[in-house]
């Protein structure tokens, strides 16, 4: 079943990030996808995440599709103007890619080519409108297209953003334009997520909650300091600190994630894993959480 059908049927869905290689060799990326495929319904392929150069998202999406798995094309507004974005979307559709997650994209100065021109010809809200236009058989300029796309469009939000209100308002606008799913930034505090859900009034879109397994207390502290909008509560950091061996750390991390998954499960329709190299934790978390 496709992602959109699963969500429409009320199924609890698992998605997982897959990063294209920094280079020409897609072997390891595909190997990771194959290993996870029995536990994951769809793979989000990142689009030059953190503005670091990698292989293009649509290419790995197409390869994942060829293996018989379902990709979600992540598309940022950072690198392509309206012509290039539409061209890539039409190409992605022809390659069998149906799902798109629309993102603003980090600023290039944060990545490994800080000299690059930041494009942002469109923003994420406008890109959603452009995809809806392609779905209706027209391009942004209103020209008729030969054949239409039928993309399933998703948006991102940070449920623990502070202050939350501007982000909520932006999400409401995206929902008005037509989105089929939401994938969230990582959540470590289930209570904060529940508070966010209660404020969502009017936005009725299936939501997948972001999970990142912690590798260490140091990683947690680093994220708290350097990643906008990520907050790992002190109790969780303490648990990670008490773990002494690598095996113990992995075990604690899996338990922490499983506990968060269980806590948010009644308030969402799926989990979105961003394993950052710890792909092998994902099946354990899914199992321990009892999904």
């Amino acid at each position: 079943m496709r992602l959109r059908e699963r969500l429409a049927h009320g199924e609890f869905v698992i998605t997982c990030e897959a990063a294209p290689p920094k280079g020409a060799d897609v072997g390891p990326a595909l190997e990771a996808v194959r290993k996870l495929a029995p536990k994951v319904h769809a793979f989000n392929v990142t689009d030059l995440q953190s503005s670091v150069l990698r292989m293009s998202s649509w290419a790995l999406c197409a390869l994942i599709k060829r293996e018989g798995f379902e990709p979600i094309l992540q598309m940022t507004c950072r690198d392509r103007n309206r012509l290039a974005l539409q061209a890539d979307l039409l190409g992605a559709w022809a390659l069998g890619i149906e799902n798109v997650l629309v993102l603003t994209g980090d600023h290039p100065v944060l990545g490994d080519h800080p000299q690059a021109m930041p494009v942002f010809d469109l923003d994420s809200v406008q890109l959603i409108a452009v995809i809806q236009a392609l779905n209706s058989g027209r391009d942004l300029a209103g020209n008729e297209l030969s054949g239409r796309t039928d993309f399933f469009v998703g948006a991102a939000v940070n449920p623990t953003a502070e202050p939350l209100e501007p982000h909520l308002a932006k999400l409401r606008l995206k929902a008005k334009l037509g989105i089929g799913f939401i994938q969230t930034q990582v959540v470590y505090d289930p209570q904060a997520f529940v508070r966010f859900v209660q404020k969502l009034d009017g936005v009725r879109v299936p939501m997948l909650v972001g999970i990142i397994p912690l590798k260490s207390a140091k990683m947690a502290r680093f994220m708290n300091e350097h990643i906008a909008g990520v907050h790992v509560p002190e109790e969780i950091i303490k648990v990670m600190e008490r773990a002494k061996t690598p095996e113990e750390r992995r075990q604690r991390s899996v338990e922490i994630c499983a506990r968060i998954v269980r806590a948010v499960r009644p308030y969402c329709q799926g989990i979105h894993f961003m394993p950052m190299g710890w792909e092998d934790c994902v099946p354990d978390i899914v199992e321990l959480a009892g999904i």
Partner: protein
Amino acid sequence: MLVSELKPIGEILGSLRPGERVFVVACGGCAQTTGAGGEKAIQTLKSAVLEGEHPVVGALEIPFLCNKALIGLKLSRVRTTVDKAEVFVVASCGVGVQAVATVTGKPTVPASNTLYYGAFQGVWPAEERCARCGECVLAETGGICPLTVCPKGLLHGPCGGSYQGECELEPGRPCGWQKIYDRLAELGRLDLFEKFRPPKDRRRALDVPLSRRRTTLWDLEFWEE
């Protein structure tokens, strides 16, 4: 010298709410020189605004609208009419519109689109405040320019990198869209925050068309170069 041109009257009136009391301000500096400011603009705008059935409570030409201190001084002399006004309609470059919005703290509608600048750049640093996009949106963003205050020039609210009012670009830099949100909240106009804006016409920001290069201003400032 910032070159601006008056917006279509319909667009200006579209930014006003029914029956809103209007104060018209026009720049007597660059905008007047390029034909989009001064007494001429005041007359055009006054009659248009009246025709749109909005009462005009006051009108004032200020020599340089990019000079915040000067705006404060001039407006304080007509305090009572300023207090009566519900919205300011401003004929000047984007810098002047933002200066009026900041000084008055009231909703401010740009009457012009800012196209590009020449030699003299005004008192309030222009390049930090107006990117000469040619499609001024200040009426919808609380008089704060999203193209210059947000390094991505987004038109619909903050990106995911905005946290506790700070921009992802560098520590200590305020998130422009948080500022716009806060200003719209103060003005009671958060409805504008959730309004869809179509993609910008980037041609307006890119180049100076031949027709413009044939103006007196162009001759005076650029010919020898």
